[in-house]
């Protein structure tokens, strides 16, 4: 796919990667860009995780201990943005970059140079995001970004310089993920090897096709919304200012038109990983492959039209709330059916429990739990009580940590042998699994109770009646954070060395899918599938 035109016999020097920093800075190789995406996500995981641990330390006791209220709210804001835009989306994009060309037998991504740009926008965006948090320490820059990741006006119009940096950061992140999505969708649609029709693609590829399309639809709307915010702040417009005839609720609609489908952007790649991991370790083909694809499509469509369930308390009409309630509850049908498909895949399989499989089973259990609290939150009269409490915090962490992050961990352990050519230490992997899963539950399970008892979210202080729940949560949170040091250790150790991985390190990896990635050596050569493979 290289745009460089060279004589046929003169391509010897293209076999290996170029030396030095140019290999990474100018990279158009899908594997190298995938690696950079994954490393970037790992850095962001530790940055966002450190913020979360600071939040949990502050909440260990009521009152103000270590951070000031505005800084606390800034932490809450940036923790969310970093985890969503810095960790989950880049990690999923990194896996897509690495795996999709190999799975569908393409030599590289469809648009390798755009691929390079969409990655290198991310560090720039991250620098802006971090400086949006840092400028508050310079006098005269105003109030820190204390709005929460939803950036609701009028507060977001009144905060200081940090908000402008944040808005530009969101612009860059949006451009980056739109370009990555266009690239991935184009690759999937146009670059498949002969003999790989859409309905034979591995589920991960399907998941990313829907994710990419979703991002292309929703990201521009968020970009438009934050642009209006910028105009309201500096150019005297009144999109969201009631004094000038605008309406702050309009921003909520624009934000959640992006924000709700964003949940599926985070979830779907992990569902795709499950669709490969579970058949592999059950040694059975995926149960109901076609229905699973249709359920993902249903989720894609339904996810776009239920956004206002985040806004039940703004005073919508009865008709509108009823519509959004029914639409939201309907979502549990395709998601529930996906879960059943995965369970039926395991049914009577000869299962083994390597780390990726342990994560997959844990996801099914814990994500279903988030589904149950999700249905509770969808019900309007109940939601009016739960709104903006820790119950919501518990719900979306149960949805996003198992649903998105653990899915990515499963993917990391599943593909690490393929990426590095080394097996990871299975004992270490299992310790990491149990440590992280138990401490995750210890952190977030008590938050259901404090939320139901009325503890509001995004507030630095709390009533003394919530002390016990918060102390359990904080201890769990610290343990959960620390468990990732082991994760880092496992990754570094596997990259450096270890037992040599075979081309197909998992016995059941090719059951039921063409699985072209397993026909390549581990690690795969720098350029793979330069001639389209034959699919049997």
């Amino acid at each position, binding site marked *: 796919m290289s745009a460089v035109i060279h004589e046929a016999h003169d391509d010897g020097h293209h076999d290996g990667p170029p030396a030095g920093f140019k290999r990474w800075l100018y990279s158009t190789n899908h594997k190298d860009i995938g690696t950079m995406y994954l490393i970037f996500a790992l850095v962001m995981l530790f940055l966002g995780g450190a913020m979360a641990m600071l939040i949990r330390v502050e909440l260990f006791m009521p009152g103000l201990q270590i951070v000031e209220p505005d800084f606390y709210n800034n932490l809450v804001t940036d923790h969310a943005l970093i985890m969503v835009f810095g960790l989950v989306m880049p990690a999923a994009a990194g896996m897509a970059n690495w795996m999709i060309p190999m799975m569908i037998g393409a030599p590289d991504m469809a648009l390798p140079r755009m691929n390079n740009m969409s990655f290198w926008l991310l560090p720039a965006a991250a620098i802006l995001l971090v400086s949006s948090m840092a400028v508050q320490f310079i006098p005269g820059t105003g109030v820190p970004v204390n709005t929460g990741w939803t950036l609701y006006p009028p507060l977001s119009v009144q905060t200081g310089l940090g908000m402008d940096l944040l808005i530009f950061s969101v612009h860059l992140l949006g451009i980056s993920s739109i370009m990555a999505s266009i690239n991935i969708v*184009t690759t999937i649609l146009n670059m498949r090897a002969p003999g790989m029709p859409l309905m034979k693609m591995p589920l991960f590829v399907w998941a990313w096709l829907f994710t990419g399309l979703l991002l292309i639809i929703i990201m521009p709307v968020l970009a438009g919304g934050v642009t209006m915010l910028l105009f309201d702040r500096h150019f005297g417009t009144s999109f969201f200012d009631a004094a000038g005839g605008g309406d702050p609720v309009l921003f909520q609609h624009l934000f959640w038109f992006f924000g709700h489908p964003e949940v599926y952007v985070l979830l779907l790649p992990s569902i795709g990983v499950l669709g490969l991991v579970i058949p592999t370790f059950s040694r059975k083909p995926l149960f109901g492959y076609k229905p699973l694809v249709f359920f993902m499509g249903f989720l894609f469509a339904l996810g776009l039209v239920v956004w206002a369930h985040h806004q039940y308390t703004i005073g919508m009409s009865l008709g509108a709330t009823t519509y959004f309630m029914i639409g939201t509850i309907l979502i549990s049908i395709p998601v529930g059916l996906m879960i059943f498909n995965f369970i039926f895949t395991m049914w009577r399989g000869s299962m083994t429990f390597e780390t990726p499989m342990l994560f997959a089973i844990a996801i099914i259990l814990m994500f279903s739990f988030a589904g149950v609290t999700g249905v509770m939150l969808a019900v309007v009269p109940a939601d009016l009580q739960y709104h903006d409490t820790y119950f919501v915090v518990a719900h979306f962490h149960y949805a996003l940590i198992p649903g998105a992050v653990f899915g990515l961990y499963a993917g990391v352990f599943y593909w690490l042998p393929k990426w590095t050519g080394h097996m990871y230490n299975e004992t270490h992997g299992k310790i990491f699994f149990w440590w992280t899963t138990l401490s995750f539950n210890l952190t977030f399970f008590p938050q259901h109770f404090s939320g139901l008892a009325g503890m509001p979210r995004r507030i630095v202080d709390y009533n003394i009646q919530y002390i016990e729940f918060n102390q359990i949560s904080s201890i769990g949170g610290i343990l959960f954070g620390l468990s990732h040091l082991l994760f880092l250790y496992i990754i570094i150790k596997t990259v450096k060395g270890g037992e040599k991985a075979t081309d197909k390190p998992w016995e059941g990896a090719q059951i039921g899918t063409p699985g072209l990635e397993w026909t390549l050596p581990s690690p795969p050569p720098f350029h793979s599938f330069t001639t389209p493979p034959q699919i049997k």
Partner: protein
Amino acid sequence: MSNNPQQSSQQQNAKTVRLMLLIVIGMFGFGFAMVPLYDLLCSVTGLNGSTTGRIQDVSQLTGRVDYNRVITVEFDATNNADLPWEFRPTIKKLDVHPGEIKEVSYFVKNNASHAIVAQAIPGITPWQATSHFNKTECFCFIQQKLEPGEGKEMALRFVIDPDLPKEYKTITLSYTFMDTDRSKLKQNGEMPKLQTSVTGNLPNNNI
């Protein structure tokens, strides 16, 4: 695939990319199209209590006063952010019959040392009553300018549509005065420090 596979696949890619860029531009436009559409939706349905600009021919309402019903109208007044105005209704509530024209007044005074132009933004609760609450004259129709220390009474004349559904017995009308000079928002000001806390007796709160 044609005899030049690379060429044809690149054309195919360019076509797909063009299509998707079109979606991106379209959705960016959709975000901005939401602004007028949302406004239109709110004024058609009366959501958000946006009544400004809805003055009907009231003669058809006043011709059929319903003396059997009494609606309590409550008046509420607030200042947005730090607008240094004194702003209150002269009466807190008023019982009216649907179809009756009533006039009430609000008092407003500028306590700042400079002239301020402000706009009153109305809101009606419950919102379902919005389309039945007709103002024939209101200080909210125009921006109000007050010199330093100037105070005045402002008139509001309204009539409630007799078609207001039976279940609504109380309507709250609230106004918020907002400074039209938005550059004065506390963009660069310090937020007040939070001093109170439920455990204020903890020693050495590090703040």
